[in-house]
């Protein structure tokens, strides 16, 4: 199973195995990783699963849709490495992905 690393805003590092097909958001929520709220449950309707994707990974993951970009306008402190973790589906290619959480969601 691909390993995904979540870094909290206080630099706490958690690496877990996430089943292919789940999203990076679901991986966090199901494993009680703090810092990803996902209020809307993965519907791209709330921007509370916002993460920063490390530069070397940003271009490797599938591109964001317009809807995701719109929603990121409403995230807390978005920047050019921002993504919604509910829109990143885990595959073997993403083994080793590192995401960092903002200091708060929303």
């Amino acid at each position, binding site marked *: 199973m691909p390993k995904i690393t979540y870094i909290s805003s206080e630099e706490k590092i958690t690496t877990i195995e996430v089943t292919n097909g789940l999203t990076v958001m679901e991986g966090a929520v199901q494993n009680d990783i703090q810092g990803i*709220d996902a*209020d809307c449950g993965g519907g791209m*309707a709330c921007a509370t699963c916002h993460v920063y994707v490390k530069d070397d990974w940003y271009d490797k993951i599938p591109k964001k849709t317009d809807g995701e*970009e719109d929603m990121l*306008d*409403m995230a*807390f402190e*978005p920047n050019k490495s921002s993504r919604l973790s509910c829109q990143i589906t885990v595959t073997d290619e993403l083994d080793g992905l590192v995401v960092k959480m903002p200091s708060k969601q929303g």
Partner: protein
Amino acid sequence: MIKTDTLVIGAGPVGIFCVHQLGIIGLKSEVVDNLDKIGGQCIELYPDKPIYDIPAVPDCTGEELTNNLIEQIKAFKTNFHLNERVEEIKKVEKKWITKTNKGTEFESSSIIIAAGVGSFEPRKFSTKEIDKFVGKEILYSIRDKTVFKDKTVCIFGGGDSALDWAIELSNTSKVILVHRRDEFRGMQASIDKVTQLKEEGKIKIYTKYQLDAVQGSEKVESISIKHDDKTIKEIKTDYVLGFFGLIMQLGPIADWGLNLNKKTIPVNTESFETNKEGIFAIGDICSYPGKLKLILSGFHEGALAARGCFKYAKPDEKYRFEFTTSSKIVKDRLGVKE
């Protein structure tokens, strides 16, 4: 003090349909919602977007769904208390007393919380040390646009609110529009208008910038905005407006002792009652094994919660199951003429 059988917190689709279910079994209800309109997330987040999983409705928009639900409860003449947020609840003997932030008080034998993911509140700037200006020169909504006349107004955001106000205020104020990226996500007509106003020199636009700092002692004098490439620009302005949409905040509900788990309220699946007698939770805010955050699930939850409220409203009566198709009493309640 408003006396009713059941107080419904939240005027989203699930709250509205629950009013229907309460109504057909003969219970009166009042509804409170922090938004200025009925419809909850349907009306605030996706009024124009289609929904495809409402049973027997192949597709409808959030707005259509809301309007149909309002139509469906018309006969009950329910009062909606909009722009009000429930602040505190307390139990006095067998009744729940609920108070809103506007001071409205309710006395009811039961409460149904259909509050979704919480009440909608404006998303705010994350910039540090700006609190003393918020509500004065830094605003997240506009009550009186005349205060901006002949002033410089710096508007942040890329959606319809930001664009609409930029267009509107450009008639009487000097407007600077700042957005974190090049694309705006409002209606095309508004984007075109803003582009035109920019070309005519009536609006200044800075994109790929975000608010970095605010300068001023008594009042805002200038702000600094930071580009993606980290360069900083200082702008003199009288007002700063932020339109970043709304965020859902659980608010005071978190303090009611309902054993919250990940911002949701655990319930039993028989009546959707919480750990507190007479308080029920339905829709996105409730959790139980197998919970799906779907509108259709919320309708089912509301139907059962309404029956659960019956014994608190009418302790001396026995609830009798009836169909709307055949029951004369239910049809009378619905105002059906035969």
